[in-house]
């Protein structure tokens, strides 16, 4: 039997998480490089209801792995259920998106099987029969090629945006969907999750903003935020921030940009003293133009910036504000 790659897609309440398509693209690319067979699994109480949707992609087979115990999501049920399923299928490589849910259960699953997860990968290479996965380290300042040093099954998770979901290839015909019923014992699940909710409606909506001036920890002190505010005001834009600024209470939470804040796509995003951690970037990479001011020429924010100013924001921002005011006044 050829080796198989199994992509475990993510769903919540019967809706596929779109990042799943990215993982399928990654799987198709890995299958092409290795010659291994590609299959997918949907896990949940009503996994089969999403079978047809997933089966349109170029996959050898789709499993709908089901048990009433999988709803609501718990790490206990997912790890126990998937362990059972993987033991019966014995894939070589198991791929998942690096979502909050996957982070919650996949280290447990792998550990329960005596295996490891190469987490948050941004790519892979297959050279001379050896498979290495690329992941960011040191908050994106360095990258590493990482290989497995244990037996299969191997687990790898892919970072949001690492592959393009719209590049997932359709199959010539629909893949066969097989429903697998799991037996998960009652005493396995220890946590009792309550309803998922959103905090009271946000006072600030940055999603429609055309110009955003965002500050990061490079601003150093709360009082310095004024400097950025003046620039934002001069530009007629909105003030936003990276997470640590909001964690410190220097700006309210509803001005936070990133995976745990707002996702924005303004015409102009000015990043002042922001390093460019992936959790920040996912919230602003759709901006039409990104200008970054950072004193560190190696800061990862420059990877995605259109215009890079390597320098001290305290030197750059005040004259920039003046210049903007002049321009607006018709100078």
């Amino acid at each position, binding site marked *: 039997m050829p080796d198989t790659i199994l992509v475990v897609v993510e769903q919540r309440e019967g809706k596929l998480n779109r990042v799943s398509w990215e993982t399928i693209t990654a799987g198709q690319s890995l299958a092409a490089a290795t010659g291994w067979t590609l299959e997918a699994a949907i896990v949940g109480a009503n996994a089969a209801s999403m079978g047809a949707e997933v089966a349109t992609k170029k996959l050898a087979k789709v499993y709908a792995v089901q048990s009433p115990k999988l709803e609501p999501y718990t790490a206990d049920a997912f790890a126990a259920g998937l362990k059972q399923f993987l033991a019966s299928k014995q894939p070589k490589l198991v791929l998942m998106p690096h979502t909050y849910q996957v982070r919650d259960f996949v280290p447990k699953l792998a550990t329960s099987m005596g295996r*490891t997860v190469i987490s948050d990968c941004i790519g892979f290479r297959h050279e001379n029969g050896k498979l290495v996965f690329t992941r960011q380290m040191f908050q994106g300042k360095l990258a590493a090629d990482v290989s497995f040093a244990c037996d299969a099954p191997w687990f790898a998770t892919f970072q949001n945006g690492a592959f393009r979901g719209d590049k997932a290839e359709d199959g010539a015909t629909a893949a066969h969907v097989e429903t697998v019923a799991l037996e998960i014992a009652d005493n396995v699940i220890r946590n009792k999750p309550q309803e998922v909710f959103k905090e009271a409606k946000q006072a600030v909506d940055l999603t429609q903003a055309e110009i955003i001036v965002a500050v990061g920890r490079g601003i150093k002190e709360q009082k310095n935020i004024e400097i950025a505010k003046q620039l934002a005001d001069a530009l007629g834009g909105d003030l936003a921030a990276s997470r640590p600024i909001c964690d410190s209470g220097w700006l309210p939470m509803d001005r936070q940009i990133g995976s745990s804040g707002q996702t924005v796509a303004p015409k102009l995003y000015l990043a002042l003293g922001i390093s460019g951690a992936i959790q920040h970037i996912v919230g602003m990479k759709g901006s039409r133009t990104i200008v970054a001011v950072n004193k560190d020429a190696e800061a990862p924010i420059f990877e995605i910036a259109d215009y890079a100013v390597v320098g001290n924001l305290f030197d750059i921002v005040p004259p920039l504000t003046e210049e903007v005011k002049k321009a607006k006044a018709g100078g």
Partner: protein
Amino acid sequence: MKILVCMKQVPQKDAPLKLNESGTWIREDVSYEVNEPDAYALEEALRQREKHKGEVVVITSGPARAQQVLREALAKGADRAIHLEDDKFVGLDAFNTAKAFAAAIKDEQFDLIFTGLQSDDYGYAQTGVILAELLGWPHATIIMQIEKTDTGIRVKRELEAGYFQYVDMPTPAVLTIQSGINKLRYATLIGIKQAKNKPLKKVSLADVQSAIGENLQKIEKLYVPQKTKKTERIEGPPAEVAKKLVDKMRNELRVL
């Protein structure tokens, strides 16, 4: 409540990193600081102890330099510390780090173990969850609030895109703590003085060697990532940079 807090020493956020000769790790001659979410985890443990009594123990694994993290934690109010001290601990994968911790605390009875949700250097986002599995305990990740209940604890999990969820769970348990769960305190002078007399236990690699094995994953190569996007550098003295940027905004981006 008896709480263990795992605290890691990582290179300072601004530290310029250089690769070692073999390109498998960084040159260690940089400044270090405590991994950010771990500082929040300690703060949360101290607050829980203030409410419910008990003990806060901090643990780290790493070279002699990592002791600094424990000293700071003791100064902020932790009761005692455990240092798994050896240069080799730096190279362990998350599985082995968790195994070393499990071995080092096997004679202790904690109600809760806190880790940060992710380390700034490796960024595995795994050590806490693995530790829970090794101990046979339940866990919850990315925690923004913890309350004691009659049957255990109720925690608030952060989910993606501004969503949250409360989870009721029994103890003992492992929680991975998110930055921003609380407001950090500073060490007081008195705290710093008292810290000198607090117990700091050393555990050697030999003490836990039998519990750990070969790494299950291996860093083949570490390197500076290649740039993919075309970025235009705006250079010159600040006033000139400002002029150039405004010119771009007006004539190319048309936002002015």
